């Protein structure tokens, strides 16, 4: 085991190779069959959980994947870590196609891609000690670090801010936040190059969530690990990721560096999403730099029969006939920064400042508000 894992020495190597693509995903698709029919059950349709997405994660970079439930972000994470078989598309890691690699072919790469799960309660085996859980990946991959596995586990416990003396304790003796730290230690055990973190802090209380986010950020910066950070919380994703992709119904609808996505979004859905985040306004001046207010109608449609063309069109205030007929390609729209891609035929102005008139698509809300104003 290399010495450079002892914190806080930052890793030079990571900086050198930064910018080089580590993970490349093209046309990634996952359809879950829907059974039905009579009298013999057969596949009658598909849940289009992920439908042809492209993304690239560079060495040492943190890439955020954000979207609401059912958008396919978690499925994407599972496909990339090969916990699920994709229906179509390719996943390449360091330029090598691993889409359909067998267990054996994957073995050398397995240790480099690790996963952190959402639920710190169910993702740790309750019958194993912390030491056993964290050394598990080393055992499976038959790796004995210098000084033995136990020494390494103690090191890892220290890195994630737990007491190395707790080596022999069981998960139930730890709080939720501490369990998530154990999960992080396990993911770090094999010196991964890429960690796929699926909602790693959403089950935690606010004050604990910040502790874990800081830990992940420390690990990312100091060990030069690339992250695919999957979450529904836009503020957390913004805080953690250098680049962000927004997903809707199995597609990436907008991707770019976080500055562009969060302050100059072009896709109406990104606008709606950002305007929906409730925020504490700490500035004393009232109404200073008021954010736009967009209220969509209803929920996300079913991914079994998604709308034709642009999938957001059924809830979009700018939708026209073209949106139903033609799927908008994910491209760089004029005025966008380099690498800021948007899939929209009629993009919005690149600002999140309040507009002349709120967009309220929800009929009940609109009716109530009219009534209130009329009084």
């Amino acid at each position: 085991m290399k010495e450079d894992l002892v914190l806080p020495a930052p890793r030079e190597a990571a900086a050198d190779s930064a910018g080089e693509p580590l993970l490349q995903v093209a046309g990634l698709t996952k359809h879950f069959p829907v059974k039905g029919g009579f009298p013999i059950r057969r596949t009658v349709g598909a849940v289009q959980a992920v439908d042809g997405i492209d993304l690239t994660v560079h060495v040492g970079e943190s890439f955020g994947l954000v979207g609401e439930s059912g958008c396919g972000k978690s499925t994407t994470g599972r496909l990339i870590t090969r916990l699920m078989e994709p229906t179509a598309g390719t996943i390449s890691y360091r330029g090598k196609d691993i889409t359909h690699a067998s267990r054996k072919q994957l073995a050398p790469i397995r240790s480099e891609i690790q996963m952190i799960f959402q639920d710190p309660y169910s993702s740790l085996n309750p019958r194993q000690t912390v030491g056993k859980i964290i050394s598990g990946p080393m055992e499976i991959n038959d790796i004995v670090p210098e000084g033995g596995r136990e020494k390494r586990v103690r090191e890892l416990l220290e890195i994630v801010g737990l007491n190395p003396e707790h080596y022999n304790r069981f998960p139930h003796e730890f709080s939720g936040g501490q369990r998530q730290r154990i999960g992080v230690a396990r993911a770090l055990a094999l010196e991964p190059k890429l960690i796929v973190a699926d909602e790693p802090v959403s089950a935690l209380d606010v004050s604990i969530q910040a502790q874990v986010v800081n830990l992940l950020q420390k690990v990312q910066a100091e060990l030069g690990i690339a992250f695919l950070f999957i979450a529904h919380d836009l503020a957390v994703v913004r805080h953690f990721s250098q680049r962000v992709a927004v997903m809707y119904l199995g597609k990436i609808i907008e991707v770019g560096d976080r500055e562009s996505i969060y302050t100059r979004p072009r896709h109406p859905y990104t606008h709606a999403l950002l305007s929906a985040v409730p925020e504490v306004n700490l500035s004393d001046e009232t109404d200073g730099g008021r954010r736009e207010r967009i209220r969509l109608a209803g929920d996300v449609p079913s991914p079994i029969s998604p709308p034709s063309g642009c999938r957001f069109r059924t809830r979009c205030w700018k939708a026209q006939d073209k949106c139903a007929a033609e799927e908008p390609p994910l491209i760089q729209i004029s005025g966008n920064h380099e690498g800021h891609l948007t899939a929209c035929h009629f993009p919005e102005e690149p600002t999140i400042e309040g507009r002349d008139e709120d967009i309220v698509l929800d009929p009940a809300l609109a009716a109530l508000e009219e009534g209130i104003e009329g009084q």
Partner: protein
Amino acid sequence: MTTLTKEAGAPVPADADAFLSVRDLHVSFKTEDGIVKAVDGLSFDLERGRTLGIVGESGSGKSVTNLTILGLHDPKFTTVEGEILLDGQELTTARESDLEKVRGNKAAMIFQDPLTALSPYYTVGRQIAEPFMKHTGASKRAAWERAVEMLGKVGIPNPKERAKDYPHQFSGGMRQRAMIAMALVCDPDLLIADEPTTALDVTVQAQILDLLRDLQQEFGTAIVFITHDLGVIADMADDIMVMYAGGAVERGTMNEVLRSPQHPYTWGLLNSMPRLDSDLDEPLNPIPGTPPSLLTPPSGCRFHPRCTFQDRVGGTRCVTERPLLAPDRASACHLTAEQKRTIFIEEIKPRLG
């Protein structure tokens, strides 16, 4: 702990204007591991038509408090002391049959997860009509019509048909709307909303929050809004009460609590929360440690094991003496008012970006 008899201080008499008045409430549960003091000396008031936001993390006692208001705790394992006055009626000692007349009628409740909170066995319309029949004596037919009307009001398209559907045929956001329709069907004066948007997606959450606010204006309902999300509370509340380990640590109007907070725990919450406009590439400032076990709560100030400002108070006051929470704008902390002001302005606010 036992040496400190008058921890919470003598309760002030109930506010005459208040519609809901909670005085020195103590709630404890018997569990296999011992007695959990879920709520420990809590007092607050709420006026008609206003919204009180209660913020706190899991185990702060915020949900327990509100179940206790409607008497929904299990009396076999729970001990309740103190006073809860709703429109002059004492609820902690009220008979079950009297509480039934209050629930869903004068005071209604919305829960976090609308999928499990609605019965899978009955139609949405029936579940909304039921309390209306019970409390107003309306006929089955009239109650059904009322249910349809309410569904329309909360924005369910085609309410006449959808009333015949079962909850599982509704989407998550629609279920929460149905839940709101059910809570408001008897035009209650008080609505208790327990994390009503936590299980929802952010765009749906925004719809529901706006809807609740607009309906409040129309119906004039007082709302107790419980959440862990400061952003949501900023959106909804007139007044805020911050809870920690079974007690209130700070209260005031929304602007007071969020723009000039006084309690180290409130500072911690604000500091640890990433925002859409906070400085990038600055680490968050989490509260160290973990929330205490309510089986053996810390002595003195409940927050002292996690508090980084103890030395400013000096001595052992934080460990031995539980700080009081005065009425109105107040915070339960031994720091002086001057200290609270300067620490916030000089040390906390700059970090908020």
